[in-house]
């Protein structure tokens, strides 16, 4: 037997275990958010479930001390990998004042945290793509060696900002890595009603950059292609478009019922191919993880999530008049 797949990529057992831990943490936070929503404690959830492999695999291929990221609303795996904590995510879920993303101003999933170089995002989709290009342009002007990593869904690859942003990055050969997390649905509208090209990756050709379609259910495959994209970016060889094929295991959001447009078989089939389970099995097959160790890990994560939930639930909201703050920088930001 030759090297194991992760070893071929230069990843240690500890690193892949850390990847798994991050994937599982994202999954379990997300599951808790749904419980809180169904219990009437938080108004809204938008999920990462089924996309953790792509998110975490990609993030681990980046330099998380240097690179910038402009995530989209499902990217809990990305922001956890970039340093946001479970406590901070629950503060956002509960819309509490201490939420570092927005101080309780934005819905959950609208990430942003300057200290971890996570750009602030909005709800209109794909606007973050030109922002990531702008950050890359600034990095190039300042002769920095970071990459700018931006994600979006496949439906969003129809927006003008996707095409305008990629073309700008292509023309100016900027260090931008764009990853489309193709979960095959834009809310209820399936891929074939969204994208006319055979693949989303095909769209790269128009913008003078390589486009790769990868199995987004496999963090190692995503890791590999993002790692290579980052090397090209840092070497001045320009941007890359990556299409990670993923599954959306939940409805679009807590306000959606996906059984209205997906049949049971499809949903069951997806759940059999759950990326978290598949990666767990890979680690077990390679003697990196055992059932016992996994149970310990789950216990540890549950504890962290329970504490984070309690903390956030009991944390104060912003004062009503805080709604007036931070419109402009002057007047002390008020």
């Amino acid at each position, binding site marked *: 037997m030759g090297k194991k797949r992760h070893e071929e990529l230069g990843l240690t057992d500890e690193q892949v275990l850390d990847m798994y831990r991050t994937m599982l943490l994202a999954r379990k936070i997300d599951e808790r958010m749904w419980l809180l929503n169904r219990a009437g404690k938080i108004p809204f959830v938008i999920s990462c479930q089924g996309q953790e492999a792509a998110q975490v695999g990609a993030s681990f291929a980046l330099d998380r001390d240097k690179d*910038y990221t*402009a995530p989209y609303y499902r990217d809990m795996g990305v922001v956890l990998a970039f340093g946001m904590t479970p406590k901070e995510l629950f503060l956002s879920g509960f819309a509490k004042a201490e*939420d*570092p*993303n*927005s*101080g*309780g*101003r*934005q819905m959950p999933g*609208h990430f*942003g*945290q*300057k200290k971890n170089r996570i*750009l*602030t995002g*909005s*709800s*209109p989709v794909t*606007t973050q*793509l*030109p*922002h*990531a*290009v*702008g*950050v*890359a*342009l*600034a*990095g190039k*002007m300042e002769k920095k060696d970071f990459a700018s990593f931006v994600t979006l869904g496949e439906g969003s690859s129809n927006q*003008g*900002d996707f095409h*305008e*942003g990629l*073309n*700008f990055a292509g*023309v*100016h050969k900027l260090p931008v890595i764009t990853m489309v997390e193709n979960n095959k649905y834009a809310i209820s509208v399936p891929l074939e009603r969204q994208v006319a090209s055979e693949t989303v990756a095909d769209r790269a050709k128009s913008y003078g950059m390589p486009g790769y379609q990868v199995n987004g259910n496999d963090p190692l495959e995503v890791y590999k292609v993002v790692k290579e994209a980052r090397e090209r970016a840092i070497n001045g060889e320009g941007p890359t478009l990556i299409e990670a094929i993923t599954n959306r295991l939940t409805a679009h959001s807590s306000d959606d019922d996906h059984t209205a447009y997906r049949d049971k078989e499809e949903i069951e089939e997806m759940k059999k191919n759950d990326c978290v389970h598949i990666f767990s099995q890979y680690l077990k097959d390679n003697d990196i993880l055992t059932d016992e160790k996994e149970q310990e890990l789950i216990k540890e994560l549950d504890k962290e999530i329970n504490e984070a939930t309690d903390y956030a639930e009991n944390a104060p909201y912003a004062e009503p008049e805080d709604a007036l*703050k*931070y*419109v*402009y*920088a*002057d007047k002390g*930001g008020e």
Partner: protein
Amino acid sequence: MPVKSYIQAVTQAMREEMERDDKVFVLGEDVGKKGGVFKATEGLYDQFGEERVIDTPLAESAIAGVGVGAAMYGMRPIAEMQFADFIMPAVNQIISEASRVRYRSNNDWSCPITIRAPYGGGVHGALYHSQSVEAVFANQPGLKIVMPSNPYDAKGLLKAAIRDEDPVLFFEHKRAYRLLKGEVPDDDYVLPIGKADVKREGDDITVITYGLCVNFALQAAEKLEEEGISAHILDLRTVYPLDQEAIIEAAKKTGKVLLVTEDNKEGSIMSEVAAIISENCLFDLDSPIQRLAGPDVPAMPYAPTMEKFFMVNPDKVEEAMRDLAEF
């Protein structure tokens, strides 16, 4: 003191700021080698190179959006929209993004971008090269909108816009570019954003306006002076957010107010100025608030007859001022 045209003042402001701060750069269509279709960036490409004077692909949302990203990173982009009329594809980036970055991130991120665009009519520009678009953006807290009326103000206000910590839309009247000349010091000076400026002291009537119309009002005021009508003229300079204090003071001073804009009348900047005066000055007014503006048709037609009909000019301002004085 050197006499410069309005557009030379704009160019000088950018040059000085680029010399002062490496983080300032220009991006837009044709801003590089060509120096801009109006020549606002002339000479900057030669002085600062293609890295800091960037010819972008023809795509306005990317010009704004890439600028927003660079600004969030900490740069000081000056994004040029070739004509204000073409800013529409970038509205999402300006309103949903730039104006909300600070607020939505609870002051964690900021977006110090300046977006310049030539606006205004009277240049045979027809519907899509003549428009005033400020009203589109003038109810978006987080944004500032600056519209200078002369070369001196253009330089000082543009420098302030570039240094501002928040996004600023900077609308330059394209007809003013070469029509208006004035003394512009070579010194490094900035003018305050958010403050209106009294351009002429007077006692009988108050004219509140901005942009090229300030010049029209000043011309008219001189003629009316000969008839014994003394006009007080307030230049808004920043049309959003408005300098309420200055507006109220100017309205109270004479009790007769004429508001002038070359934009369409309904829902214009002047509608808000009128509301401010109504709320605060009812018992100080000696006549109804008057507005002189473009008619409520979509935009300015091309044929000279119809263009002239649409456009505010010194004669129309003079007539409106006289009517008000005689009220």
